[in-house]
């Protein structure tokens, strides 16, 4: 288990492993938004928490196909399935590795990008907190989607399509926490719900992902 995690992290940071690409994508999407909606700072301040959340979500989404597909293509998954590791553990570790290499950098970068969007001063903390609590759910749900679409050629777009609806609750509560935080309102309720989703996803989805993966390996 630890070996698998260590290997995934090592692969991510080796040349060509794609570490940092998610972050760069996040940066670019954030930059594009003002080009689309116009440069008025008041407007940007209002939509900043939502944009940060959507940007983080998309950056996560685009890196999902690396979670399992590479291991599938070179046969590693077949071999892992016959190794003495429970499939649930494998998918959990994969999701964890994805979060460490994608979600965590996004969480840390979000406040910096908040500057670009004139995030309200009170918002920085809550954007950070909401992403920190919410992105694990994105990784776990995304792993489920990756397991579903494994083996499809260039299934990236289909993967996005399957996963996006599943991301809706996380996005709603996450963005709500960030928005309320930015406006100085109370955040406890949505934060609790967000935590609940994250926790629930982490506890239950690996079983679904493992089942799906076993079916796809057949």
């Amino acid at each position, binding site marked *: 288990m630890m070996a698998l995690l260590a290997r995934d992290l090592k692969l991510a940071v080796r040349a060509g492993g794609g570490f940092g690409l998610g972050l760069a994508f996040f940066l670019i999407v954030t930059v594009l938004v003002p080009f689309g909606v116009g440069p008025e700072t008041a407007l940007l301040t209002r939509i900043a928490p939502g944009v940060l959340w959507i940007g983080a979500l998309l950056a996560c989404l685009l890196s999902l196909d690396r979670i399992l597909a590479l291991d599938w293509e070179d046969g590693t998954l077949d071999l*892992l399935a016959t190794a003495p590791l429970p499939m649930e553990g494998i998918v959990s570790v994969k999701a964890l590795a994805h979060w460490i290499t994608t979600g965590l950098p996004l969480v840390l970068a979000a406040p910096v990008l908040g500057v670009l969007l004139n995030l309200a001063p009170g918002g920085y903390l809550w954007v950070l907190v909401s992403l920190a609590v919410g992105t694990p759910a994105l990784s776990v749900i995304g792993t489920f989607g990756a397991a579903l679409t494994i083996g499809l050629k260039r299934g990236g777009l289909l993967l996005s399509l399957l996963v996006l609806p599943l991301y809706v609750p996380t996005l709603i509560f996450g963005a709500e926490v960030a928005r309320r935080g930015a406006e100085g309102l109370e955040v406890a309720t949505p934060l609790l719900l967000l935590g609940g989703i994250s926790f629930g996803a982490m506890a239950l989805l690996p079983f679904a992902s493992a089942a799906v993966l076993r079916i796809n*390996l057949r």
Partner: protein
Amino acid sequence: MVLRVSNLEISRGGRAVLEGVSFALAPGAALILRGPNGVGKTTLLRTVAGLQEAEAGEITGAGESMAYAGHSDGLKSMLTVAENLQFWAAVFGRSEIEAALAAFDLRELAGRLAGSLSAGQKRRLGLARLMVTGRAIWVLDEPTVSLDAASVGLFAAAVRGHLAQGGSALMATHIDLGLEEAAVLDLSAFRARPRAAQGDEAFL
């Protein structure tokens, strides 16, 4: 542990492929599966390895004592030879890789990235992986693809050593492996009558 397959029936892509396959593999024995392309060797081995379900029949004795090596080697091109082996050793709860490196003449290559190996060297690494698993039953699908004669010899020696230690090996191949002591099972005789797999059968 004796691997015992009895009256197995398997299907692939919605079509029955083989039926009535039975054999037993005792410790110290090797069994070679033969048959023309598409007869179902890969399907059978994947079923034995537990990667897919049988339509009927029974497999006992595999599971936790079995190591599988398929058409692909599961190597990461951005890890070195040693790192690849260490990873698989760790997955199987072990750490010793020297013997495996030596057995497949990989010592000199240990520091090279797996991506920079030739096809034959990659295959040798894939086979060395078996030795670090510490598993008793090897289930191998065309293990000597793209190996030259000398490497086939290394492989045969490794299998002999494994058998001598009480292991066993089940292999599908089109090539002569130089393992005269191994029993041979030709799968052509077990071709399934043309019919749909169980999933489809419900609709017929």
